[in-house]
C-alpha cells in the first residue's frame, strides 16, 4: 500500500486529517492508540517498529510519539496521541510490536507514563531506587542525587 492509499485509508477510518510530507503524521485520541498501531501494522503494512518516545508539553499534558515504517514501499508513519493534562497512563503497544517493550520502559523511566498491560514495567536506564522522572520539564537538569553531587 503506497503513501497515497495509506493517507486516504487512514483519514477515512480514523476520521482525522493526515498531514502530507515525508513521515505522515497521524494524531489520534489516546483510547484508539492501540487500534491505530494495529491498523498501521496490518493494513498499511508498517511492520518495522522504529522508535517510541514522549514529549512533555508542560500544561497541555504529555504526548506519546511512535514511528513505524513500511520497508518495502518506503512509507513512514508518525503516530501521535496527546494525553489529557495530568493523565499519566496510556495503552501499551507491546501486543502489537515486540520492540515497544524496552522503549515503553524508557518512557516510563523518563516521563512516568504508566503503560497498561505492559509485561514488566520497571525503570530501564536509572536504578529502581531513583525518585522523580528526569525528562519532565519540572525536573532541574542537575538535581543533586546524594552522595555524588
Amino acid at each position: 500500500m503506497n503513501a497515497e492509499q495509506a493517507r486516504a485509508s487512514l483519514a477515512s477510518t480514523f476520521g482525522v486529517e493526515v498531514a502530507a510530507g515525508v513521515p505522515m503524521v497521524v494524531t489520534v485520541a489516546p483510547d484508539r492508540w492501540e487500534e491505530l498501531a494495529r491498523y498501521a501494522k496490518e493494513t498499511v503494512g508498517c511492520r518495522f517498529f522504529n522508535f517510541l518516545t514522549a514529549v512533555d508539553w508542560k500544561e497541555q499534558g504529555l504526548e506519546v510519539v511512535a514511528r513505524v515504517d513500511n520497508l518495502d514501499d518506503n512509507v513512514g508513519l508518525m503516530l501521535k496521541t496527546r494525553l489529557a493534562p495530568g493523565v499519566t497512563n496510556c495503552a501499551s503497544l507491546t501486543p502489537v510490536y515486540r520492540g515497544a517493550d524496552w522503549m515503553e520502559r524508557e518512557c516510563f523511566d523518563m516521563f512516568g507514563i504508566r503503560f497498561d498491560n505492559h509485561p514488566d514495567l520497571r525503570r530501564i536506564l536509572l536504578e529502581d531506587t531513583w525518585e522523580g522522572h528526569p525528562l519532565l520539564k519540572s525536573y532541574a537538569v542537575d538535581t543533586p542525587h546524594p552522595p555524588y553531587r
Partner: protein
Amino acid sequence: MALNDPPVPVIPAPIWRNFKELQEWEALHKTRPEGDKHSALFESVTEGIHNFPGGFVVTTAADAFLNWARKSSVWPVTFGLACCAIEMMATFCSRFDVERLGMVPWASPRHSDLMIVSGTVTIKMAPMLLRIYDQMPDPKWAVSMGSCANSGGPFRHGYHVVKGVDRVIPVDVYVPGCPPPPESLLNGLLLLQEQISHFKKTGRRAPPNVKVD
C-alpha cells in the same frame, strides 16, 4: 539570567560522605591499620630485618630495588566505561604498545594492581566501580583518564553523572583530555611509574578528598 551561563544548582550539593555504603568504605579504610598490606610472608621478612639492629640499612636499600620491581610490572585491569576505553584500547595495541613498559591488561581485578578509570562514572556504576577497586589486592593505584573521570567533563551538569571519580576512589594520576590521545595516557602511565618508584608503605592510603561543587 543571561542566556548562556550554566544553570545554577538550586540546592547546595551535600558532600559525599553521608552515603551508607561509601561510609562503610571509608570506615573500612580506617580499620585497615596499615592501609597498604603486602603478603604475609613479605611482611614478616621485612619486619624481621627491620627489627634486627642496623637492619634499617637493608630495608631502605631494598625499597629502591623492590619499587623497581613494582614499577616495571604494573598490570592494569580492563575497566573501560565509555569513549576513553576506545583510546585506552588503542594505547594497549600495536602502535602505542604499553607492553613495552611491562603492562599486561588482565581481566580479573584480583590479578591486577592498577585501575585505569576510562569514561564517565555514572551514579548507577559507582558502587560497581567501588567494589572492583576493593577487590584489587594492595598495593594498588588508580589513574583517572579523561575529563569525564577527572571532573564529570562535558556531562558535569547531568543528573546521573558523578562529578569525578575521586569522589568514589582515591586517584593517583589524572590524565586530561576528551578523550586523551594515547600519547598523553602513556605520559600519565610514565608519571605513575615514577610515582611508584618512590612508593613508601606509609600506612595512609590517600583519603578520598572532600568535594563540594
